[in-house]
């Protein structure tokens, strides 16, 4: 941890280019390293399809560009934009529910004729920004009215996204909001109370779930109940990971991946390809990247100079952490299949752009600090 807290020892010259470009070297290089690892795995997952890798490379380029762009926005401006961003995001969500385009049974897309995008992606950033903005207005920990309002701010977009239905994103957004509230000092008593409440509400949640969502939960509990249907993904990914062993079968040599047994292997289940071809050691490398990025994010949060940026940076970092825990948990059969990609590694999606924009915010927070006297 001492390395992560190194800012105390930073000298102006070392920070020079980072400060000018508003980039954080540790975060940037670990993100680039992670992307590179992702491209290597993706090349194999796509069966050696270089075009797939090229498309992903373009997407990564756009994502890094958006990181760079967002990093230039000073946190002060971000703070001012927050309520507007949130409102625009909610309006888009309403528009999606009314007139969005469907794809694969879910209504997630909004066609603005110029770009076709998922408004839920905006909310991944807008919700934690909004809650942080709102809670930072008054002193911490927030009182009950503030908490109640924050809960509404989280619940409204979450429910709208869950309705699309996009359970994975709804879950991410809910946790990003929750992290803000938790960091802001949510009383342990209340946390316990909510925990009890959620447990009690579980049957009701079950009641409101779509059939396929229920099926996923059943599948998680007993994948062998339907080995060729809904259990197939989990069974095959467990076989892929398990047969990879300590060192893996070698790049491009995963039989589960290369012979089509593993479904969705370039997207949601790409972690299984890594596990099969690079083994536990490969996974260890991936986890090291992830953990480093999360810890670096938390460090940035702690070093931030005001409550809004602290809350926001902490939430974004922890959400990233949740992101990869949910994906790896689902691929290893610990969590239901909710349809979340492995951040930075899985092919496609607008989510990678949002993700990098989030890191842009972190970098902006880190690099726009007023240097205090040592």
């Amino acid at each position, binding site marked *: 941890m001492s390395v992560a807290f190194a800012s105390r020892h930073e000298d102006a010259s070392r920070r020079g280019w980072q400060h000018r470009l508003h980039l954080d070297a540790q975060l940037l290089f670990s993100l680039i390293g992670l992307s590179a690892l992702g491209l290597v795995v993706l090349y194999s997952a796509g069966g050696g399809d270089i075009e797939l890798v090229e498309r992903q490379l373009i997407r990564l380029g756009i994502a890094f560009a958006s990181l760079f762009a967002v990093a230039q926005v000073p946190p002060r401006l971000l703070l001012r934009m927050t309520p507007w961003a949130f409102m625009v995001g909610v309006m888009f969500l309403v528009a999606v529910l009314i007139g969005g385009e469907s794809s694969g049974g879910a209504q997630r897309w909004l066609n603005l004729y110029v770009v076709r995008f998922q408004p839920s992606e905006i909310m991944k950033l807008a919700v934690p920004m909004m809650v942080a903005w709102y809670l930072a207005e008054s002193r*911490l920990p927030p009182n009950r009215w503030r908490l109640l309002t924050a809960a509404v701010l989280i619940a409204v977009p979450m429910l709208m996204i869950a309705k699309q239905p996009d359970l994975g994103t709804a879950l991410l957004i809910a946790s990003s909001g929750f992290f803000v509230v938790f960091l802001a000092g949510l009383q342990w008593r209340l946390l316990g109370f909510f925990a009890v409440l959620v447990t009690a509400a579980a049957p009701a949640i079950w009641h409101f779930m779509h059939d396929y969502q229920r099926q996923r939960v059943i599948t998680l509990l007993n994948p062998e109940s339907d080995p060729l249907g809904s259990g197939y993904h989990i069974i095959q990914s467990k076989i892929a990971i398990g047969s990879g062993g300590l060192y893996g079968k070698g790049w491009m040599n995963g039989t589960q991946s290369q012979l089509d047994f593993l479904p969705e292997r370039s997207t949601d289940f790409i972690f299984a390809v890594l596990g099969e071809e690079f083994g536990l050691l490969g996974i260890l490398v991936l986890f090291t990247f992830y953990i480093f990025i999360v810890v670096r994010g938390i460090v940035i*949060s702690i070093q931030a100079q005001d409550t809004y940026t602290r809350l926001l940076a902490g939430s974004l970092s922890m959400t990233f952490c949740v992101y990869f825990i949910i994906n790896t948990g689902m691929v290893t059969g610990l969590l239901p299949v909710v349809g979340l990609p492995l951040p930075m590694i899985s092919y496609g999606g607008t989510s990678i752009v949002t993700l990098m924009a989030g890191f842009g915010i972190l970098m902006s927070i880190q690099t726009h600090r007023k240097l205090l006297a040592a």
Partner: protein
Amino acid sequence: MADRLTLKDYFFESRLILNRSIVLLVFAGMLILVLFSRLFYLQVVSHEHYTTLSEDNRVKLQPIPPNRGLIFDRNGIILAENLPSYRLEITPEQIDDMGATLDALAKIIDIRETDRARFSKLLARKPAFEAIPLLFHLSDADVARFSVNRHRFPGVDITAGLARHYPHGELAVHALGYVGRIDEQALKTLDPSNYRGTTHVGKIGIEKTYEELLHGRVGLQHVETTAQGRVLRVLERSPPVSGRNLFLTLDARVQRATEAAFGDFAGSAVALDPDNGDIIAFVSLPTYDPNPFVNGIEFKAYEALQQNTREPLFNRALRGQYPPGSTIKPFIGLAGLEQGITGGHSKNYCPGYYTLPGNTRKYRDWKRTGHGTVNLHDSITQSCDVFFYDLALSLGIDNMNSYLRNFGFGRATGLDIVGELSGLLPSREWKRRRHDQAWFPGETIITGIGQGFFLTTPVQLAVATSALANGGRMLAPNIVYAEQAANTEVLIPHLPRPRETISISEQSHWDLVIGSMIDVVHGARGTARAIGKDSPYRIAGKTGTAQVFGLKEEEEYDADAIEEKLRDHALFIAFAPVDVPRIAVAVIVENGGSGGAVAAPIARKILDAFFEEPEA
């Protein structure tokens, strides 16, 4: 407290957020630890289990069907072979517009509606990367026409395989049988693992009887496949064991001569080697070409075969049951001699009819004017019915039954072709069981000339004849004399299967009966003397004429007046040369009329063919 309500305490807030961040990090760390132990469990603890599962996924067993054994005649002439056959196959994933492709193909090669229907059925069932056969057995012209146009049809290919072929077509089809596609009924009786990958199975005849030998053992290869089953490479291979080649006792040359000898007649002939039971010729006519059956005969063609009133599909040699007629007389005569009822010199007067004591019903002789005074020898050579009416009555049905049973009548011969019928040797018990009636003396009388209930199959009659020829050794007829494992030179013989020996108390009884049979052919008054005149070898024989329908007492048999299918069957049994018999034959000509005039000349042609030196 009051100032904390209004003032933001930045120090407090940053401590709070720091503490909370540490809590979250610890919590996330715990989750990651759980994840990691899960991964450790999957990748280290259960690694072997999942490796097995992944191998099972990847490696599939694929059958390699064995080549079917060939069938040769006794001189090594091939009767059933495997020919390269060309199939037109389409790989759906390489086709953009299946309908257009098929239409374009139809302009080059004739595609039947049934082919298309079968193809589209398969198309729906098979994965898109698997080649689906559209046409089997392309002709050379079709292959050539397609090859020229091949560039226009990516995804359409010609593949070569082996298909059963019977080069002599109709020849000996009732012995050989044929193979056909495995259908659901056949699947039930086959060993599913050994028949994985096999498409055809023996349906009838030798092809069916010797299915196990001819088929061989399936080979296996371990192949690496994708989840969809596309084969990527072969990992391991255990080759199939080809089926055994069979060498038949059948002589294709004699078989062909026999089939030709019948002309347009329907009927059957079986020729045996009396020494070992080897079948030399096995004929049932009319015959048919088995080749269309191999890959599924067209319905119309099959219907035509089935509805043909001459019943080409009917295996007469094996399943045709005919009254033996007068061919039974040597056997009855032998029984009479053995029982001491008749002797070489005892004579009877034949007035042309016979009556039972106290009954006015006349049992007529075929010769209305009668044969005059005749002994057993005369009665066999001239085929006097009246003598045998009397002899039968004296013997009684029980005696006759047991003597005839010794010669194999009423019992299957145990021939190694499936589906044999046993004929019918009537007895008191049989009639009681079957008709719930007592046995009448009149029935004994007509049994004595091979009429009435009495039925025999051509193969049965041939076996009985060969027992006469070899002095009473009953043999199960053999049609396969050796088998040969593929790629070897060694012939593994199938040994003759002797049955019981018929004991006759005195050699003179044999001599008398066989002498009479010689005179049937070579004697001045023999019923088959026409074939004996110019014969270079000596033949023992007996004619027979079996009534297809009964004549009333006063009715005159007039061949011209009766419909052909109601005319008498002509029969002839013979063996030759008489001193050391090498061949025994039974000939039945359906609706042929007289045995001496029609059946005997056919038998002569068979013998001639057999004794003729084969061209070198």
